């Protein structure tokens, strides 16, 4: 059976859920093989999980330059591995860095690139959701090995036993790959919450929250659900929360299982980033707010009474 390469993403030294989703999706095309690219010693702690989710092989390219330079070294390593494995497809999860890696890989190997797939079919064609969810397209790669980036939460991860046989890959990086050096990584907003891009539950706050100090209401609700915290552009433009929390046309696009929009009117800018969420709940004081047109369940009311009550209720029900 043809191999399907899956680029492994990690958070705090563990395999991310989005990677488990890809290993699951890869099985519809062929036999998944994981690819670990990172600093020396990265792969050892990951192999157990990768085996549990069906990785037949684990290609390991380790070196200090992978974290030391932006994007290009990982794309070169992946191109080398594609050359060795001759896979039926390459899957990566749709983060901004991974999309750039995938694009540069596709360029190098003369392949087509499909981004933000929401379904991956057995022939490596995909379904994409465009124009903020208004149109659904079926696309395929017409030359080379399909390189596909897949949106988080598109597939439910399912365990399956794999051998996770390690294949060490020696990559001699070109000088050109070492053009953009990462000299520092600064953490501004580090919490225990999941990241927005691949969270299965997201609670977002908007203009109605009224100020940075009030965002604690959103955060408390998010924490009661184990959710990520997002925001509308109104809230990030006002400087209440950092830009990277913005969900929408010019921010992150998400499709979680549950999206709770609090004090967000639902301007097209915001809807474009979240309307493919499986379930949408809205709290807004304006009954005419467009967010209610797409909410599965909405409450017209003051977010400062409704949201804390919901937080309290969820905490109580968790026992």
């Amino acid at each position, binding site marked *: 059976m043809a191999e399907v390469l899956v680029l492994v993403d990690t958070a705090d030294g563990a395999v991310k859920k989005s990677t488990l989703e890809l290993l699951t999706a890869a099985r519809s095309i062929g036999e998944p093989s994981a690819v670990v690219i990172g600093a020396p010693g990265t792969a050892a702690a990951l192999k157990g999980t990768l085996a549990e989710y069906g990785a037949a092989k684990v290609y390991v390219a380790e070196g200090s330059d992978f974290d030391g330079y*932006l994007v*290009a070294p990982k*794309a070169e390593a992946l191109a080398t591995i594609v050359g060795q494995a001759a896979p039926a497809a390459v899957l990566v999860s749709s983060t901004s860095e991974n*999309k*750039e890696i*995938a*694009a540069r890989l596709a*360029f*190098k190997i*003369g392949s*087509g*690139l*499909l*981004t933000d797939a929401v379904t991956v079919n057995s022939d490596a064609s995909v379904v994409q959701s*465009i124009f903020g*969810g*208004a*149109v*659904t*397209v*079926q*696309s*395929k*790669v*017409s030359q080379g090995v399909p390189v596909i980036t897949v949106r988080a939460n598109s597939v439910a991860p399912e365990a399956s036993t794999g051998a996770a046989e390690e294949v060490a890959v020696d990559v001699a990086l070109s000088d050109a790959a070492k*053009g*953009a*050096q990462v*000299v520092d*990584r*600064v953490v*501004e907003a*580090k919490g225990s919450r999941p*990241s927005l891009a691949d969270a299965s*539950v997201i609670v977002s706050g908007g203009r109605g929250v009224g100020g940075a100090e009030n965002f604690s209401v959103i955060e408390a609700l998010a924490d009661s659900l184990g959710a990520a915290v997002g925001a509308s552009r109104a809230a990030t433009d006002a400087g209440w929360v950092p*830009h*990277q929390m913005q969900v929408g*046309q*010019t921010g992150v696009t998400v499709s979680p299982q*549950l999206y709770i929009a609090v004090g967000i009117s639902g301007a097209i800018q915001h809807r474009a980033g979240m309307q493919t969420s499986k*379930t949408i*709940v809205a*709290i807004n004081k304006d*009954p005419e707010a467009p967010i209610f*047109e*797409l909410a*599965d*369940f909405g*409450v*017209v*009311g*003051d977010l400062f*009474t*409704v949201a804390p*009550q*919901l937080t*309290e*209720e*969820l905490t109580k*029900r968790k026992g």
Partner: protein
Amino acid sequence: MNVVVLVKQVPDTSAERKLKAADNTLDRESVDAVINEIDEYAIEAGLLLKEEHGGEVTILTVGPARATESIRKALSMGADKAVHVSDEAIHGSDAIQTAKIIAKALGTVEYDVVIAGAEATDTRVAVLPALVAEALGVPQLSHARKITIEDTAVTIERVSDTGYDVVKASTPAVISVVEKINEPRYPSFKGIMAAKSKPISTLTVADLGLGADEVGLANATTQVVSFEVAPPRQAGQVVKDEGDGGVKIADYLASRKLI
């Protein structure tokens, strides 16, 4: 410090955007066209670099004849000149083909840095700047919220999930920007008048030394096989808070097995 800013014309996001049934490509004719929003931030970044370091700002656009409207707007903001690659043969090109076209067109101008918006509102692929860097073999400095240039050293703050990464390279380099980087200026009346006489050089695929078999829908590396308009999301139940709104949401989530 010569800067080239990549500018894309896109359908206005407030209009209903469509694909054309004839060839499954973007319908650019039936809707208002505007400068891709983040590209205005890229133009502003270019103008700020010119103000600080001198040199020229050149706008580079690949797109149909109508894209001159967007080019004129960019020139009215203060850019000096423009290159417009316009050719029927380009219609339907994918991101990789477009990057190759841009890389070739960059060969016709002098530049120290190329600046682009991080993502276009129509395709939302968000990889074009990385592809241009790959095609040119120069450093990629993408998703910048801050740019600092000293001599040939370019340093950016690249936004990350948790904060930012400081990334450094030498010119020439390709930079992409996010909207946190600045506040784009509005064209002044004087700027609008001046833009009318600024030079735009129009180039075809042949002018760039590219073959007709390297661009366009028929040679694209990906293909849209079919599309359908997604059924509109049905509005669900909306209730007025009677003092138990939070409890009602919890009940709803429980009924959907979401908690």
